[in-house]
C-alpha cells in the first residue's frame, strides 16, 4: 500500500477540487502499479499537448475542476513560430485555422500556470534543478540530461503523468527516484577513441550506438575527456532514449552522484563493452536514411540550440549565402532568440538566407515535410529518427552548414 500524507489524503478525497482529486488518483494508481511506498514533493514539471482534438475534453475538465499547477511548470514547444508562421507552419498545415487550434491547445497549460517557454531546454533557461530534485518532464533528452548531468531525479513519464504531477505537486517515488535504480550497469570503455577531433555529430553517433547496445540499462562511460562542454553532454544525452530506453548515464567526475567509477556502479563489477570508431561510423550509416548528395533542407536544433551554438552558426554564415535550392532552419527557444537578435546573430543567419525558428520542435514535431522538404541534413540523431516523412543525411553542424551553402552533401563519415 502507498502511504499518503494527510494533505495527499485530502487531495484524493476531493477537498482540493475535482482536478486535484483526479490527478492524485492517477498518481496513486501509478504508485500502486510500481509498488512505490510513498509520494514525494515534486520540484518541477514540463508539459506538452497537441496531437488529438479529444485531449481538449480532458483539459476542459481539469480547468473546470480548478486545476492550478502546484510546482514550477514549463511548457514544451506548442508549434507556433510567431514571427514566421506561414513559412514554418505546423505538421498539420500553416493556415490561420490550424494556428488557432494550436493556440487553444496551448492556452490550457497557460491557464493552469505553466511558464510558456516553448522549448525543450527549459533546464537551461530557469527551470533550475539541483542534485536530488524531483521532476516529471515531457521530452526524453531533457530527462536524460537532468538525471545524468544535474543529478536530479525523474522517470520517463508520459504526458498525462506530467500534468498530474504539476497539478498535485507530488510525484510517486519509484524507478529513477530511488538510489538503487540509478547505479551504472554497463561499462562503456571509450579509451580507444581519440576525442580530439570529435564533432557534435560524433558524440551523438557514439551515444546512439551505446543506446542500442545497453537497451534499458544504465551505462557508465570511461575514457571520455575529463571536461565536456554543455553542448557535448547534451549530444550524449539526446540519442540514448532514441536508440535505446536509457533514462540516465554516468560519467565519473561529471555526474554529480558519481565521483568515481566505483561509486557509479555501487562497487559492483560491471559488464564491459569496448567501443571504437568503427561503432561510431556504423551508427552514422544507421542514422542517415539516404545516400543522396543533393539536399533541399538543413535542420539544426534538436534539442534546441544554446547561445554558443547559435553564435557559432551565425559566425560561420557571416557573408555566405545559403544555396537557392536549400532551406536552412536553426531552432531554439525564443528566450535565446531575444539574445541572438540583440547580439546580431539572427541578422547574420537571416542575411545568409537561413531562418532562426522558435517554439518549434525540430524532432518528432518538425513540420519540414509539410513545407515540402524531402532530403534533410541534420546534426541530430534524434531528429533523424523522429522527423516524419523525410529522408535524412547526418553529420556535424559544420558539415550541415557547408551543405546548406553548396547544396551538396559532403559528409565525411
Amino acid at each position, binding site marked *: 500500500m502507498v502511504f499518503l500524507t494527510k494533505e495527499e489524503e485530502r487531495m484524493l478525497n476531493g477537498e482540493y477540487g475535482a482536478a486535484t482529486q483526479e490527478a492524485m488518483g*492517477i498518481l496513486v494508481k501509478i504508485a500502486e502499479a510500481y509498488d512505490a511506498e510513498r509520494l514525494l514533493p515534486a520540484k518541477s514539471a514540463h508539459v506538452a499537448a497537441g496531437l*488529438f482534438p*479529444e485531449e481538449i475534453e480532458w483539459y476542459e475538465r481539469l480547468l473546470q475542476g480548478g486545476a492550478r499547477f502546484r510546482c514550477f511548470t514549463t511548457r514544451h514547444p506548442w508549434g507556433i513560430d510567431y514571427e514566421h508562421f506561414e513559412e514554418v507552419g505546423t505538421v498539420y498545415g500553416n493556415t490561420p485555422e490550424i494556428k488557432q487550434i494550436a493556440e487553444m491547445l496551448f492556452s490550457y497549460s497557460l491557464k493552469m500556470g505553466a511558464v510558456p517557454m516553448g522549448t525543450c531546454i527549459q533546464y537551461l533557461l530557469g527551470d533550475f534543478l539541483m542534485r536530488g530534485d524531483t521532476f516529471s518532464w515531457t521530452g526524453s533528452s531533457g530527462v536524460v540530461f537532468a538525471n545524468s548531468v544535474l543529478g536530479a531525479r525523474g522517470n*520517463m513519464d508520459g*504526458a*498525462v*503523468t506530467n500534468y*498530474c504531477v504539476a497539478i498535485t505537486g507530488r510525484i510517486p517515488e519509484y524507478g529513477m527516484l530511488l538510489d538503487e535504480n540509478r547505479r551504472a550497469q554497463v561499462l562503456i570503455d571509450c579509451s580507444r577513441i581519440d576525442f580530439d577531433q570529435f564533432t557534435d555529430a560524433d558524440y551523438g553517433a557514439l551515444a546512439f550506438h551505446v543506446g542500442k547496445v545497453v537497451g534499458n540499462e544504465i551505462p557508465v562511460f570511461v575514457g571520455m575527456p575529463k571536461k565536456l562542454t554543455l553542448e557535448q553532454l547534451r549530444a550524449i544525452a539526446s540519442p540514448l532514449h532514441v536508440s535505446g530506453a536509457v533514462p540516465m548515464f554516468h560519467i565519473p567526475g561529471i555526474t554529480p552522484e558519481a565521483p568515481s567509477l566505483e561509486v557509479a556502479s555501487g562497487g559492483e563489477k560491471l559488464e564491459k563493452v569496448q567501443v571504437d570508431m568503427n561503432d561510431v561510423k556504423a551508427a552514422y550509416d544507421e542514422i542517415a536514411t539516404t545516400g543522396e548528395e543533393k539536399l533541399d533542407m538543413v535542420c539544426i536544433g534538436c534539442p534546441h540550440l544554446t547561445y554558443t551554438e547559435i553564435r557559432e552558426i551565425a559566425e560561420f554564415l557571416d557573408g555566405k549565402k545559403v544555396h537557392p535550392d536549400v532551406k536552412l532552419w536553426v531552432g531554439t527557444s525564443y528566450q535565446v532568440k531575444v539574445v541572438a537578435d540583440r547580439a546580431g546573430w539572427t541578422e547574420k543567419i537571416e542575411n545568409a538566407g537561413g531562418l532562426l525558428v522558435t517554439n518549434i520542435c525540430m524532432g518528432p514535431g518538425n513540420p519540414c515535410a509539410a513545407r515540402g522538404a524531402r532530403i534533410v541534413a541534420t546534426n541530430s540523431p534524434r531528429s533523424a529518427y523522429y522527423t516524419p516523412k523525410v529522408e535524412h543525411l547526418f553529420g556535424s553542424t559544420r558539415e550541415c552548414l557547408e551543405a546548406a551553402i553548396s547544396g551538396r552533401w559532403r559528409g565525411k563519415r
Partner: protein
Amino acid sequence: MTIVLRGRGLVKGKAEGEAIVSRQPISFVGGVDPDTGIVIEKGHEIEGQSIQGKVLVFTFGKGTTYNPFAMFAMKKRGTAPAAIINLKTEEIVLTGAILAEIPFIDRLERDPFEVIESGDFVKVDGNTGTVEVVKKKS
C-alpha cells in the same frame, strides 16, 4: 474449455471480447490507426489486425509520451480495445487506460501468452483482477 486466472486489476470495470495477442510492445501513437483501431506499425506481429473492442494482450507499452492521449482519442472514436492485459505494467499505457477507462490487468498468475491466444473469448473483471478465458474451438 474455460480457464480462470487471477491477476491484479489496476483499472476497474468489466469488459469482454475476442482476444488479440502480441508478444511485442505496442505504441498507440504511430503504431495504431486511431480512426480504425488497426495496427499499422510495419512488421509488427499483429500488423493489419484490429484491436477495436477486443481484449488486447501484450507485453508492455513503448514509444512516445503521447500514448495516453492516443488511447483516450481511440476510446472517444469507438476504436479502443475493450480491455488490456499486460505482462509488465508501464506507466504510459496505464495512464492511458485510466484516462480512457479501459479495464486493465497485470501480474496474472500464469504467463498470459501460454494461456491466451488470439481468437479466444476473454472476460476481464478489473474490479477483482479476474480473467476468464473461453478457449476457441480448434
